[in-house]
């Protein structure tokens, strides 16, 4: 009997282990098998990612998740959004909680190498800034010596802030906060003299204040914050898919392909680059394990890069961000899609 129990236990554990091995494969196969893309997003940052009363997510980063889902699965709604805080986002990606991290994360050396992430590009060029109440009478970050500063833990801003004050021989008192909404509450109640985060986040935060005019964003941008989506290290094909989906969105804007005219251009465009992009001539999709129309679906999901920008964080929205560095390279910005060839 003893042996029977033992054998039984061994059999069960072998079975479970076997089932585990059988399921191993690359991310693309997993996503297709699951029929759903797991996308790690910010739990709530207006304009970038936030759920509404019915749990429908919208925002700049969300649109990228949708584009990838459309490219891979053929349906932009087949995304499961997994909210990740600043503290848990990278561990969430590394441990396989999500397939793709689109959570305004800064591309840095150590994150790319030591944290075993692969950043697949930049979808928003940002920089860290400061917001202060007008009544404080401060017009430059250099005047903030000795100030109390609200800062979100687990972000690069935390490190930049330490470096900036050290380099300028100034001191500060950090007030650590856990989420953006806690930070707003603390800042508005005057618990800190200044609030620091990415300039885009500051604009979004300020836009929602009762009296936005009472607060100024200081001119200093103290760091480079190239925000981009990231995937796990070691799955190059999946990284390629995410990277070229992003480029497809950017290229679409460059070539004037919008969600409105995409069907028409797919049939009638004479531009060879557009033809390749939309799969009219070459079958680029096959090279990354997708079908011909992948880019077409990605662009149709929520429009090209410019359309997404305008709809979520652009000047027409309450957040009101100008394109600035994020304009196309043809218009003096940094958005430059690699050629589709």
């Amino acid at each position, binding site marked *: *009997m*003893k042996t029977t*129990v*033992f054998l039984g*236990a*061994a059999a069960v*554990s072998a079975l479970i*282990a076997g089932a*585990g091995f059988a399921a191993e494969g690359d991310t693309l196969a997993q996503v297709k098998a699951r029929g759903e893309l797991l996308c790690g997003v910010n739990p709530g940052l207006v304009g970038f990612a936030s759920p509404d009363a019915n749990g429908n997510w919208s925002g700049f980063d969300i649109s990228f998740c949708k584009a990838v889902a459309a490219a891979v699965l053929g349906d932009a709604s087949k995304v499961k959004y997994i909210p990740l805080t*600043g*503290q*848990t986002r*990278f*561990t969430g990606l*590394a*441990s396989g909680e999500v397939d793709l991290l689109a959570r305004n994360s800064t591309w840095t050396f*150590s*994150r790319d190498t*030591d*944290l*075993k992430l692969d950043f697949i590009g930049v979808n928003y060029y940002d920089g860290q800034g400061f917001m202060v109440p007008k009544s404080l009478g401060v017009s430059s970050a250099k005047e*903030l*010596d*000795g*100030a*109390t500063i609200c800062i979100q*833990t*687990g972000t690069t801003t*935390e*490190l930049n*802030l*330490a*470096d900036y004050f*050290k380099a300028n021989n100034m001191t*500060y*008192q*950090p*007030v*650590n*906060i*856990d989420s953006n909404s*806690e930070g707003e*509450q*603390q800042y508005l*109640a*005057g*618990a*800190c*003299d200044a609030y620091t985060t990415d300039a885009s986040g500051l604009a979004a935060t300020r836009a929602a204040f009762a009296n936005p005019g009472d607060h100024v964003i200081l001119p200093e941008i103290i760091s480079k914050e190239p925000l981009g989506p990231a995937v*796990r*290290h*070691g799955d190059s094909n999946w990284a390629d898919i995410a990277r070229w989906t992003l480029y497809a969105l950017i290229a679409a804007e460059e070539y004037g392909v919008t969600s409105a005219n995409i069907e028409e251009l797919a049939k009638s465009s004479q531009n060879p680059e557009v033809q390749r992009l939309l799969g009219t001539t070459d079958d680029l999709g096959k090279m990354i394990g997708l079908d011909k129309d992948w880019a077409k679906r990605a662009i149709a999901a929520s429009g090209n890069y410019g359309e997404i920008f305008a709809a979520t964080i652009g000047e027409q929205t309450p957040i009101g961000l100008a394109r600035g560095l994020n304009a196309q390279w043809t218009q003096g910005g940094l958005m430059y899609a690699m050629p589709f060839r």
Partner: protein
Amino acid sequence: MTESAPAGPPAPPFRLSMLIYDRHYRSLTIQVVVFILLMLLVSWIVHNTVLNLARLGKDIDFSFLFNRAGYDIPQQLIPYTSDDTHLRAAMVGLLNTLYVSALGCATATVLGVVAGVLRLSKNWLIARLMTIYVEIFRNIPLLLWILIIYAALTEITPGPREYRGENARELFLGLIAPTNRYTAIPSIVAEHSPGALVIGRIEIPWLAIMGIAFFIAAIVLRRIVNARAQRIQNATGRRPTTWWINLALFVVPPAAMAVFFGLHLEVPELAGFNFKGGINVDNSLVALWLALSLYTGAFIAEIVRAGILAISKGQTEAAYALGLSPGWTMNLVILPQALRVIIPPLISQYLNLIKNSSLAVAVGYMDLRGTLGGTTVNQTGREMEGILLMMAIYLAISLTVSGVMNIYNNRVKLKER
């Protein structure tokens, strides 16, 4: 059944079925099976972990602890800058955890005893108020209390700037300035400072060491004085008055130190954005401390109440019959006996408080969970090492505290038989 027969027939020959049916062998069988299953489970987990780590190109490596941390910590008990290592950041966090836990345990005990005794008070209003306090704090999650108290501190208190200008606010008692980010309290400064004891980068002022030494000496001397008084009382039946000696023991040395070294208070002063001089106690610490004390205090109040109620009424009546006042009855008769019932659950409340202090992250107080288990893990991507190390440290703290408290418990326990 041959088990207990002293000179029974010889044991029957061993058969395989005895592994299950014979009680002697069965327990062995069960243990062996469980052990094998456990080993299987452990090896399975280790195997999986190795496999997973290899797949991600990671390894288990604690050397990240010696890299530059790069982030600042608002509240620190030992010197720390962003240039220090992650290990030192973890140490700062650990000390912060211990600090808020110690503060919390002390105030929670005081609050709990007071509320527990007052809940049994004959004063109708007080008893009701204490009941409300206990029920409200016991039945609402701690996390909510931490958040509420933190937000309340921020919203109710004035900003530092309101202490300046035309109709400036007065410092409380001219010494303390509560603001919406910290409470500025005065620090003690010596005019002729004897310097500090420097160990590595930690500086301990000699004055503090002297103060602690005097305090310990006073406690020891007090014991000797009281023991002597007891001896005299036993011999002659009259107890000499000792309260003034005891008082002097605790008052004279600090007073002498104050005069000799020219001790005085340095009142915080507004300079630039914030108060300088004095000590700024962060609101996150205050909020966490208050919330932990109030929450745990409510539980301790219930324990104290139950302890007091467990003492039979005859004890009170006997004390009254001896002519003791209600206050003395409580102090000399009821509480010492109730202590026996109170201490074991009290220990687990202390342990709960220490563990609950890990909720500090909600208010940005950088404790062990905030430094090692939070920012460090996040910046270095070493979640496996960081979290396991953090759990090990918490476990060590818990086991130490419960060990020490159990020794104390065994000492106050009523020795029976």
